[in-house]
């Protein structure tokens, strides 16, 4: 019984999402936590391509992982990176 490649790919991507999500809530460094949350979003955008929703994938890739991370970084800089 062979596992289809697309199922393997989905499992890999979803475990990537879960691991980076867990890192985002557990990491001590605030900067690393924010970057991990962006990473989860980036993995999610690839999952949307697998699920045949390219419109959503484009939005998630540019907004979820680009602009959201960016405004988080600006906010950390404004609050002097307090943990």
């Amino acid at each position, binding site marked *: 019984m062979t596992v289809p490649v697309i199922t393997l790919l989905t499992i890999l991507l979803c475990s990537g999402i879960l691991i980076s999500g867990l890192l985002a809530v557990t990491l001590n460094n605030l900067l690393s936590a924010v970057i991990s949350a962006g990473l989860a979003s980036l993995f999610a955008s690839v999952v949307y391509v697998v699920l045949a929703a390219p419109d959503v*994938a484009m939005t998630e890739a540019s907004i979820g992982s680009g*602009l959201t991370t960016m405004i988080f970084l*600006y906010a950390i800089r404004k609050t002097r990176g307090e943990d």
Partner: protein
Amino acid sequence: MIKRLFILMMLAVMAVIFLNLAGNYRENTELSRLGHYYAENGPQELGAPNLVTAVVVTYRGLDTLGEVTVLFISAAGVGLLLRRTRRKQDDEDLEQGDRAEETAGVHKPASEIVETATELLLPMVILFGIYVFLNGHLSPGGGFQGGAIIASGTMFLLLALPESHISRLMIAVIESLSGFSYVVVGVLGVLLAGGFLDNRIIDPGTYGALFSAGAIPLIYVFVGLKVGFELSAVLDRFRKEDTGPL
């Protein structure tokens, strides 16, 4: 400690509910009735190959108008919250803190390579954003994606050349004009065609051509400009240490 226990219990209850939901889930083998209607009649009725665009702009156009309004309100809220603090004392404290920070931190200007690459890449990023929202009815993409790409271009500019200035007047004018035109197109739909935001006010043209699908490309241009400039304004607000009064 007891608080944490409560949180854990609540999450456990939610996890049980979610497990039930996931256990009863069966993957769809055919479309829902609504999706079936859109897939069957969308292309003939509206002339837009991209069904998501057809749903976003026309079938659920009112939702999109509301969504753009929400985005506008949030951009205005960010501008209101991040304006200069009025109290003198606070202000001086802040400014002194900033200055100390600036002299203490190593603040190097961008190198020549980055500047040159910005000049080369920025027009292409903007052009790609325009391409995405002009082709929204033919290929994946549309106003929101194109606007986000334009905002990414702004982000790139702010990162590479932090001293660059973005005209707030230009942002305000373009944003208001595109929002206004969006509503005007919607009202024209009431007057000339079937209802609010109906796209058949313009001749649909040949199916699959660039200038087809009636008013959909027009609406998406307005949405794209509005979203792009709003997100740029939000980024600009977040960048400034002390933004001026509104």
